[in-house]
């Protein structure tokens, strides 16, 4: 289930509302804080949990099969480029995991093609995509074709 929001931690900033892929995190009009308006369409994807600057959102396992008394918490740190998970079992055991989320500073590596050289007419008329064949990194530099691989399309049952 879905996500729920701790009343004392949420300040109604709306980051979760902005990011929820299922459009179910909304701001409660009375309390001015976030809430999950449709638990049965929540995927437990944790997008809102990761986006919350105050760790105000948590997840409680789906009531149709998960007992109470557990938690899976997360801190996603964009500056460090890591994500840290803390799993607490119902019986009190804990597991901790840490993974990288990116190897490059955000927003630094993707070119705006408008600043790059125009592709040639030859490239436009070929089967090559942007940055190919270099980006396939074949030593011989070519794109595979039926001819290069001695293949032919043949109709019929082929077994």
């Amino acid at each position, binding site marked *: 289930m879905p996500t729920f929001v701790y009343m004392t931690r949420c300040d109604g900033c709306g980051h979760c509302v902005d990011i929820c892929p299922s459009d179910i995190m909304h701001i409660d009009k009375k309390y001015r804080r976030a809430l999950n308006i449709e638990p049965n369409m929540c995927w437990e994807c944790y997008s809102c949990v990761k986006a919350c600057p105050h760790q105000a959102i948590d997840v409680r396992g789906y009531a149709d099969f998960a007992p109470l008394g557990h938690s899976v918490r997360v801190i996603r740190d964009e500056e460090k480029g890591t994500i840290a998970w803390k799993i607490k079992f119902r019986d009190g055991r804990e597991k901790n995991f840490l993974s990288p989320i990116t190897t490059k500073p955000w927003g630094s590596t993707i070119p705006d093609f408008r600043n790059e050289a125009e592709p040639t007419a030859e490239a436009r008329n070929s089967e090559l995509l942007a940055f190919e064949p270099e980006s396939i990194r074949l030593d011989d530099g070519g794109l595979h074709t039926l001819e290069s691989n001695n293949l032919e399309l043949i109709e019929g049952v*082929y077994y």
Partner: protein
Amino acid sequence: MSYKTIIEDNIDILVVGAGLGGTGAAYEARHWGRDKKVIIAEKANIDRSGAVAQGLYAINCYMGTRWGENNPEDHVRYARMDLMGMVREDLAFDMARHVDSAVHKFEEWGLPLMKDPKRAELPEGDLGKGAYMREGRWQIMIHGESYKPIVAEAAKVNADKTFNRIMVTHLLMDDAQDNRVAGAVGFNVRTGNYHVFKSKTVVVGAGGASNIFKPRSVGEGAGRVWYAPWSSGSAYGLLIEAGAKMTQMENRIVLARFKDGYGPVGAYFLHLKTYTQNAYGDEYESKWFPELAERVGKAYLDTENQHFSHKPIPTCLRNHAFISEVAAGRGPIHMVTVEAFQDPHLEEVGWENFLGMTVGQAVLWAATDIDPKYINPELTTSEPYVMGSHATGCGAWCSGPEDISGKIPEYFWGYNRMTTVDGLFGAGDSVGGTPHAFSSGSFTEGRLSAKAACKYIDDGKAEGINVSQKQIDDRKEQIFKPLETYTVGRNEIVGGTVSPSYILPFPGLQRLQKLMDEYAGGVTVQYMTNDKLLNMGLHKLKILEEDLEKVGAEDIHQLLRAWELKHRHRTSECVVHHTLFREETRWPGYYYRGDKMKLDDENWHVLTTSQRDRSTGEYKMEKQPLYHLVGDAEK
């Protein structure tokens, strides 16, 4: 209604839905169309939308041609075997020959791809020594929590504008020329504003369909499905309504997954080398194969020679063994994890596999004190899903690339990945006959379609498009009708959700799911159907369609759910027509035609297509020839 109408005009390429397919399209469109206007319309926020929203721990389609691992034809052979022959091999080859270049770009953009230290002797690439860590022959392992935000950046940098929170409900058609697309319309799920996108071409990168069959989870947990609950079949609903020819819509998929959480099993089987057993600790799979081989034939399951030929056993047939063993009373089926999990590295991989892409499974194990180091967890088979990018090939009938498909009229009409509607292209779930594309392949398909869309425009094919004001006005009225229906009907009753004049979207969805489950081969009937059931299902779908004219929406959020339901309904209708048309059981383990239990290569070694008449709603079903590229023997 006080909602504004916002018109975005003179668009060259409109990308509808920006998951992995749509982001690939927006990125590539800018490369070949420097001065073209590229616009994205996405239902959620493209930083976290689509099936990869919560992350992905593997890239499931990487050839490794650079490392001498696989050539494109190897992947074609694999996908063909897995789908019992039913694959558009031209499209599959085309995707496979480009897919590595997308993966190499992902790494350049910062996606952490794991390297295999044992293969450090391999030639040095641009990004460091060694080949990627293989999970299996086609999969590589990644730390993919931020996979989607990373590719979304590529799309945002290169699109002119990204409209988030737009539910695209319909494609616009050209009033000047029949069967040509002219853009799309929808509404903003936060402001309620009506959005009109007039565009020369459209790339549909929308999602396949979860939640069209009754899910195993119920109540509060109904969103715990394997495929994202926001994948509402728009990849099909939009295209079918526009009159595009569809293919392989009968090829729904059933997944074997960890019970209740739907946690992935790929890394467990392939990297952790876990295996399954029945409740009594026995290997059960192989004992179902001799009987099954009788039904599907030796070409697909050769029980004596499979270990010599090294042909993988098709996923659906393995499902068949699972389903049969449970039906025989020897369930549950367990994944044997206690051996592998003694290795701390493998234990970490096992858990991070969930945290990186299916957190709900970790939540469930924490809640139920299941530590797979000491307990072998249960598996289950899921409800069916309809999609075109995972291990199934549902979607639109699309043109192939000229150098591969050019000589075959049924496969080629000029522009790669263009549907049978002029100017309308597909990517990811919306392209039919191309299973096993997964995330990287979907991104690649988006790239291919965007390049072709640029060419289509440059060739002058999109000249003189006209969208009448009437079309825009009619769609507006249609889109907001559920709000009107609710407002009027609500006054008849004291309160609550039960009304004689309207149904709300969620009960409507439950009705669709029950119907599809019982008549089209869902979980509660053990995936079994027949011609009688399917015909009854079609009748009930027709009546549901009438009632969906009376779907009510209390607010804009419910209006979103109403239109998702309509897309799911249209998808379901097409699935039932296709299932009825293919008179055989091609994929035992995905579904069974009880009246036609044998696979019939003599009559059905063909692809199926359907086309819905835009004015009458009638479906025209056809067989299409299947062209093969490669022999079945491994080189």
